[in-house]
């Protein structure tokens, strides 16, 4: 540490809010920046990281007893860092802090992204300006403002077309020790933050069609150029959507846009709770969806009649064939059901589900898609399975496969939802069903 420099700085500003940027921070910030898929935002993220480390160091050196938690901060969440020009979700004790990085001490206005002021998920109790001066290699904790004061005043100041508020620096408190007093002694309910939107799904459904078209076009452009504010709020507050957006920067698979459609269905469509099949609690709704439950194998033998269509028996036959060629082990208490679709080509989908582990919350789903008995196999039919992140599988039933049905087995955990889409070979509408297993 250059003692001469430090003396100088301390003398001049009489404050230890000036922090010499340590070499390991510079390295780490570079790495964090480099790892961001969006090249045009790497520099922003680099500065954000330096601001974060400077702030953490300052808090720790002034009051080591204050608990700091950076794990959820946007710096470490690339899908957020890709969008928001501030560091949100920094936790100190019971308070949320948002850091605003700047590079120029002489700025009389501070640029605060609308995201961190107007969206409940990203607001903070305190907003702190951290200046990073790269030429002179120091960070400077320059001032702060609390949420109430910011919101009370924001309407007086410009909101730019790129969704940034321009707040005069004179509105910020420059005696940083006052922030320490607040963090250590203030009751958290002294500043009330707004609650998050409890029903974002409605807004999501409404905008679905538009967003489905626009989101794939965005790539690494800023959102304000392509979306309305409301559309942006929906996208940014939904973890799966913003994740999809981030992945779209590097995912060149032409199917990825297809996945977006599936994702919207996963987010908005009604789910079938497979657990109820096992517990034999099929509610009316599912009856309406025309799932036919099938009894367990032990019950079957009495009802076997070769000449009539016996879905249970057909399923058993198929499962027997499956168990001969694979090592799939289906427990006796598995839930079984089937559903038929008959737009043009008759199709029948069997679904068998069972619990793998209660403690680890894992479950299994076996799907068999074919035609109805006494009809030719529906060659050309496709089956696609997606989860939140990606398309898991795509299969097509072709005659050269030598089988009459498509079969797939999936395993998932408690939070996961599986979207099953059937694309009939005749060009009629796709059929999708959304499964989950609620523990």
């Amino acid at each position, binding site marked *: 540490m250059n003692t001469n420099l*430090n*003396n100088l700085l301390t003398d*001049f500003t009489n404050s230890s809010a000036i922090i010499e940027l340590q070499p390991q921070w510079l390295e780490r910030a570079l790495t964090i920046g480099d790892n961001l898929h969006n*090249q045009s935002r790497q520099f922003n993220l680099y500065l954000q990281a330096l601001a974060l480390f400077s702030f953490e160091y300052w808090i720790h050196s002034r*009051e080591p*007893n204050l608990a700091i938690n950076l794990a959820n901060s946007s710096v470490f969440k690339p899908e957020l860092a890709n969008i928001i020009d501030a560091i949100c979700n920094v936790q100190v004790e019971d308070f949320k802090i948002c850091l605003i990085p700047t590079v120029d001490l002489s700025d009389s206005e501070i640029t605060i992204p609308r995201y961190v002021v107007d969206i409940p998920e990203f607001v903070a109790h305190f907003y702190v300006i951290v200046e990073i001066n790269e030429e002179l290699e120091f960070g400077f904790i320059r001032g702060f403002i609390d949420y109430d004061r910011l919101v009370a005043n924001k309407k007086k100041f410009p909101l730019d077309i790129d969704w940034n508020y321009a707040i005069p620096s004179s509105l910020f408190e420059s005696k940083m020790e006052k922030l320490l007093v*607040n963090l250590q002694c*203030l009751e958290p309910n002294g500043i009330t933050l707004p609650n998050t939107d409890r029903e974002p799904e409605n807004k999501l459904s409404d905008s679905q069609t538009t967003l489905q078209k626009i989101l794939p076009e965005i790539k690494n452009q800023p959102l304000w150029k392509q979306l309305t504010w409301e559309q942006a709020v929906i996208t940014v507050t939904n973890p799966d959507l913003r994740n999809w957006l981030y992945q779209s920067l590097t995912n060149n698979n032409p199917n990825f846009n297809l996945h977006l459609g599936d994702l919207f269905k996963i987010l908005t469509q009604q789910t079938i709770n497979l657990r109820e099949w096992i517990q034999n609690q099929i509610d009316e709704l599912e009856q309406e969806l025309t799932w036919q439950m099938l009894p367990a194998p032990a019950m079957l033998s009495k009802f076997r009649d070769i000449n009539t269509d016996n879905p249970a028996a057909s399923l058993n036959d198929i499962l027997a064939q499956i168990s001969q060629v694979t090592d799939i082990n289906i427990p006796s208490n598995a839930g079984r059901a089937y559903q038929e679709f008959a737009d043009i080509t008759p199709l029948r989908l069997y679904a068998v589900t069972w619990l793998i582990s209660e403690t680890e919350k894992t479950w299994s789903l076996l799907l068999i898609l074919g035609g109805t008995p006494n009809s030719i196999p529906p060659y050309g039919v496709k089956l696609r399975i997606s989860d939140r992140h990606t398309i898991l599988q795509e299969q097509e039933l072709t005659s050269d496969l030598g089988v009459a049905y498509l079969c797939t087995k999936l395993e998932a955990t408690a939070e996961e939802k599986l979207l099953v889409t059937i694309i009939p070979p005749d060009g009629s509408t796709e059929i999708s069903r959304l499964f989950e297993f609620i523990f």
Partner: protein
Amino acid sequence: MVNHANYWILRGVNSFGQYQSQEIPEAEAFFLEYFEGQIQRDRIEHREIQYTLFGWYRNEETEAQLNAGFCLRCFVSNCIYQFCLSTEQKYRETYGLSRNDLFPVLLDIIPQNYVARSRVGDSLISDIINTFDLSKDSSLSTWTSIKVKGNREYKIVLKFYGIVEVTDWLILVKTTPGKLERKLRQQGYSESEIQEYGNLLEAFHQVYRTKLLAIRREINTQRKAEGKGKSHKPYPPPTNDQLKQISKILNISRQLEPQEVLNKLKNIAHILRNNTIPEPINELSENTENPTPNLDRELEIVIYNQIEDILFTVTNQVIEAKINYFMNKKTPKIQKANNLILGLNLFYCQGYSMGEIANQLELSGQSQVSRLLKLKELREDVSRNTISILKDSLKAQVTKLLTEPEKLAILDNKIQEFIEPEIQEVIQEAEAEVFDSKNKTRKSLLARTVCQCLKQRGK
């Protein structure tokens, strides 16, 4: 007439950072012995003198080396002195910068007894002398100016006085498209101009910011290979390649030449820089909005009573935390920790002045003492931690205070004033005190408590 006294009058500062000058008799005698004749005949230029002096200084075998060194140091110190004067003249009126702010930064400390024979230091003056290249045409005074202007500490001083040298490229990097649009609109630019400049700024961001970190790495790698230190220009001008890329992105009917792009960018920076339209500050009037609330007088008394009980514990904790901070570093700073204890003792228990403390602890000056003791912070820390404890003991009564940041701030101020009134004056007095004044009793509550804590530690 050329002033040759510059070669034997050394300008510097004392250990308090105050300006001082001193004649060096050895240097004077030496200089006149070799050069007087030529000077009288008006036959010698500074350049020749310096050339000769450097010859002696850089040749380790001659006896003249030391004296030549003195002469050079004196000369450079005079150049710096002049530089400080002219900088003051430039900035004093608008920014309040004075020469006295610059002297301690740029000049060397002249110790009380100047007997330094072989001055090996890393001061600015030493650096200037060591890096001066005789083979180039520039004079020593020009070289001094260059080095001073590039000196980091000098730049920091300017920065904190608000005299900031902001390059065009920094402006362009940090300005958001929204801000540019707003400024252009405010200044009455046409839609098409706003559009054009907006696109240009965004293209610049895309090309320049993206590559900035990589380019810096390249530049610094090259500098390292050339034996130079890291660049202190984090925002270099865009390269020709970058300008071409920007032009390409703009995708307009006529491709712009790199120079055109450069000029347009500079134009944008100029517009942003010279924007003097004030923000509607008259709507702010922060203090008149909320009349400063006050604390309940009875509550104050309750609090003050409680404080006396807990102050010892809190002060102990705070001092302990500071010690631990030094000791828990990767390489424990034992000396610093000890100095802190000693320093606090000298200040609070024995009433020493800053200067005397510096002496006792063998620190170079008052500023080092200030930095070590951090008296203001000590008071802040004690107050804040006191409130933290009061939270629990007086919960019901103070809850109202603790839910309003304004009230909390007042409480903090009151407590600070209670335990150590007028700390700014106390510190200033201690700094102004004559060198060896001791035994000035520090009477504040905090002072007494600190002493108690230190006494207990000593046991």
